[in-house]
């Protein structure tokens, strides 16, 4: 066992492209970092921005969001809508000081098994260098981990 930090990465992917692409990575026997957990969505347009925040709050150190290349959407325009949403959301997160380097956006088609491995490996390497995202998790656990402190604050002096 190495003492190296192993980041937890959550990947939100579209069913039609990146999920099939990740499947191809496996069937092509390409090895890639095992830090990533994949969650399948019908379309990148379905990926609510709150899911990204919930991933960080739940302990992820990095997030991958991936889907079909522009013009390849199974539903014609889901990825175009998603792209607009990410453009604004990413700028907004950056303005609030949330670490946007921990969110990797990519287009990976069903034929790009090798690209998926590369995206994952690169993200894992980058997030490993950044370390655990403890600032965010600490803020998220303001109540969850601090019940005792908060209860004490609410106590009325007898």
């Amino acid at each position: 066992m190495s003492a190296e930090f192993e980041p937890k990465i959550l990947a939100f992917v579209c069913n039609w492209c990146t999920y099939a692409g990740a499947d191809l990575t496996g069937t092509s026997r390409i090895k890639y970092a095992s830090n990533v957990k994949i969650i399948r969505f019908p379309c990148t347009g379905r990926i609510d921005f709150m899911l990204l925040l919930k991933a960080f709050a739940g302990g992820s150190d990095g997030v991958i969001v991936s889907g079909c290349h522009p013009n390849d959407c199974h539903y014609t325009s889901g990825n175009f809508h998603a792209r607009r949403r990410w453009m604004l959301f990413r700028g907004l997160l950056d303005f609030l000081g949330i670490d946007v380097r921990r969110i990797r956006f990519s287009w990976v088609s069903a034929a790009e098994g090798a690209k998926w491995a590369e995206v994952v490996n690169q993200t894992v390497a980058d997030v490993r260098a950044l370390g655990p995202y403890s600032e965010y998790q600490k803020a998220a656990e303001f109540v969850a981990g601090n019940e005792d402190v908060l209860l004490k604050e609410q106590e009325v002096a007898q």
Partner: protein
Amino acid sequence: MNALRSTVKELLGSGAIDVFVGYEKGTRLPRPLLAASADEADKLIFDETCTGNLAVYLTRKDLVGGKKAGVAASWYAMRSICRLLDENQLQEGAVKVFGLTPEGDLKPFDTLADLKQHVQETPPPPKPVEDEWVREIDAMPAAERWKFWTGELSKCFKCYACRAACPMCYCTKCIVEVNRPQWLQPWAATMSNVEWQLNRVMHMAGRCADCGACGAACPLGLPVHIIAHKMAKLVAQSFGEPTDKGSVLSTFNPNDEENFIL
């Protein structure tokens, strides 16, 4: 001022409007007044200090629902009204808009087209203070921005005054009241406060008139309107100024330019 009072009395008397959403003298700043009678109309004032966005009352079913309303509108309120009309939240003909000329005279708008043309042709009142905030925050390193915003928003006690003051926040069921799934913890805590502001500003993206009513309404004086101001800048930078052809996030352009997707 007398021109406004007599016009409103005339409109109320003839039944052209049932209620006039305007301003009366307040302790420090003018405050909203919904005038439905000649007596109430006598309290109305309208000058350059009347900057609060009164468009928010036009979608309130308990106050204006089903009535024909007149409204005293600042430039930003006019932009909100145009947006509300585009989103079918107001009916043309059911609302009569009054603005001020640069000389301080009353300027009535007869049709929606007139109002839209006026909003497009008149440059928005400058926002030097807000611009300076955004510049300063943008210049901070990311870690410092995070410290600043979590520090500010940790004070928020979730009164939702920012939501109540916003003309575009007209949903009858808001994401914060939905509990399946419960996206936002209902209690006040730093992270859920940050998440609330992110949600609020994302839902307003491209629809926000950038009037600053959210920040002005905050009882703690938190600079939440600065986040909305930044969003307005991001929208203009990425997609140009919002138009009346659908909202920014419900439309798209195949040639949208970004630089971060692999």
